[in-house]
């Protein structure tokens, strides 16, 4: 973990990023619908930090990661990296950047080509980005495997012969093979067992230290987020609720949604749990196909006001590196 400087350098600047999906609806697929998956989000990611993105399922976390990496073409907005706006580049031009911005997916079962050996998987980016001489590739693969804590003999195995944790290590090794600067971890540990989860978290932290990586860490488990991140962003239904340094957000959440999230997390403490007063949110996350007007959260918000119904709260900087979007937050 790096403690960032007073005036940290932004590695990525995301401005007004928007992503809509156009889908077919109706019994015969003859009606059109728009999924507002990402609705004008703006934030910076600083060099060397871990920024976490939390929120409920379907709120657009993955979409954010994918859109930043241009795996989805943004509907609108800029992704500035190294002086270039990735959103305007063609797929060919992007290829060079792809190497530097990598992603580890949620589900280690489906992100490996079942018909390629682990070694091939890892060698592929090395070969295509010419990151090693041809004859050195096997050695490089072994080294990468060692980096993620897998013995070299795993290079000959097929993904289905590995356990979930091992697969996730392979996925990380593959991302590392690109020698990236920036790594999106899209729920990289959610599918894993607790014991394995801890292994991977430790691994990610070690690698960050070793290679000076910057992480966008997407997760829904707040406890994990607290453990790993420098800053935390909370998302609700395609929009950011708040963003700020981890301690600030966890100790003094501003947005009512953040508060509710924190209160819902169970703790391995029977006595505390039995007596704890939770602030349980009522109802479900509304559909992004048809999001509520005004502040998206107003339908479940314990402190909703009249204005929340009609007006989208502004995305405001409230000082201390924190921004929030809520009518009820003063300042």
């Amino acid at each position, binding site marked *: *973990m790096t403690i960032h400087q007073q005036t940290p350098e932004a590695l990525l600047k995301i401005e007004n990023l928007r992503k809509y999906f156009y889908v077919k609806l109706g019994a015969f697929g003859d009606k059109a619908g728009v999924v507002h998956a990402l609705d004008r989000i703006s934030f910076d990611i600083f060099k060397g930090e871990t920024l976490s993105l939390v929120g409920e399922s379907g709120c657009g976390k993955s979409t954010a990661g994918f859109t930043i990496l241009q795996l989805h073409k943004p509907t609108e907005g800029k992704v500035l990296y190294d002086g270039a706006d990735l959103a305007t580049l063609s797929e060919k031009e992007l290829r060079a950047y792809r190497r530097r911005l990598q992603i580890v997916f949620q589900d280690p079962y489906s992100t490996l080509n079942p018909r390629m050996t682990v070694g091939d998987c890892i060698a592929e980016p090395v070969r295509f980005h010419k990151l090693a001489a041809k004859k050195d590739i096997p050695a490089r693969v072994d080294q990468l495997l060692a980096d993620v804590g897998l013995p070299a003999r795993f290079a000959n195995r097929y993904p289905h012969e590995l356990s979930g944790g091992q697969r996730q290590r392979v996925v990380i090794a593959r991302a590392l093979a690109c020698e990236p600067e920036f790594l999106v971890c899209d729920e990289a540990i959610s599918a894993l067992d*607790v014991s*394995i989860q801890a*292994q991977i978290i430790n691994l990610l932290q070690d690698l960050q230290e070793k290679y000076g990586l910057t992480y966008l860490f997407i997760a829904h488990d707040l406890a994990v987020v607290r453990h790993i991140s420098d800053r935390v962003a909370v998302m609700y239904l395609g929009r950011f609720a708040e963003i700020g340094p981890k301690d600030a957000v*966890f100790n003094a959440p501003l947005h009512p949604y953040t508060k509710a*999230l924190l209160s819902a997390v169970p703790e391995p403490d029977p006595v505390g749990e039995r007596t704890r007063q939770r602030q349980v*949110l009522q*109802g479900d996350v509304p559909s992004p196909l048809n999001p509520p007007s005004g502040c998206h959260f107003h339908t479940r918000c314990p402190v909703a006001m009249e204005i929340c119904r009609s007006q989208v709260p502004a995305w405001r900087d409230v000082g201390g590196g924190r921004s929030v979007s809520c009518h009820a937050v003063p300042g």
Partner: protein
Amino acid sequence: MSSMAKAPLLEVKDLAIEVSTRRGPAKVVEHLNFMVKPGEALGVVGESGCGKSITMLGMMGLLPPGARVVDGTATLEGRDLLKLSNRELRKVRGGQVGFVFQDPMTSFNPVMTIGDQLIEPLLYHRAMSKADAWKRAGELMRLVGIPGGEKRLSDYPHQLSGGMRQRVMIAMGLACDPSLLIADEPTTALDVTIQAQILDLVKDLRARLGMAVVWITHDLALVSGLVDRIIVLYAGRIVEEADVDDLYKRPSHPYTIGLLGSLPRLHGPEGRRLASIGGTPPEPGRRPKGCAFAPRCSMKIARCETEEPQLAPLPGSTRHRAACWVAGTVSVEAAA
């Protein structure tokens, strides 16, 4: 909780279950002994694949093809479930024992309305007429807190959110006032906020209806506020069993210690490195000699690799048992 004196509701003895693998038959569950008293809530904790689900399915004759019970007894209210005919077993399922499954998406028949699915236990156990059953289903819907109640009965599963589906699933499990509710990771697929709703719901229902609950999970944090007792499974065997407070206060088996240690926490000191357990659990059929956890154990002694430890009470407690040669000599602090 004061459930000590009562006779057991469910008592499982020496249960062993075998599955067919590519390398031949393998026992995935063995020497399993536990019991549930009336009204008691039991947590079953363990990593994926350790045999949690298959144990419950095995008792109820719901095993998938390729898996079979090879040994043991499972006595529910005096009757051995494993010896019942299919017809008798059917009476038990959904009647005396309710089920809640993990994935609320796939566990509902997508082409039947939830009402039609919800009334089934009532039709086949209570012999209710369809109209009565429908009425009762409406009540159940309200019981589990579905806004709109019976109005949603004619919806199809896909029209409900995941949380609502899981509520309906719970309603289905409770339809015939079972004395035992088996919940197999009912919140794993849900969001934290929804998970909290469901947890509250079950706690509330238990307080009102007084049924016993077996709650299967891999998340030690989740069950801490919910259950009375916990058994920890590793590779198909119980490695530790204790009252809930005791277990969290004084985890004894290195595996339990490891599990707790690897949980990142929302409160308390941060910035520490997580105490992870290295390695992976053995595959079914490739159980090592001796203690199955030995290859991953940081405290193993020579004996662990040759001789399998039996579940035994820890010094100073009859209700806290562990299967470990070194258990009791280590403490939580040492592990952390």
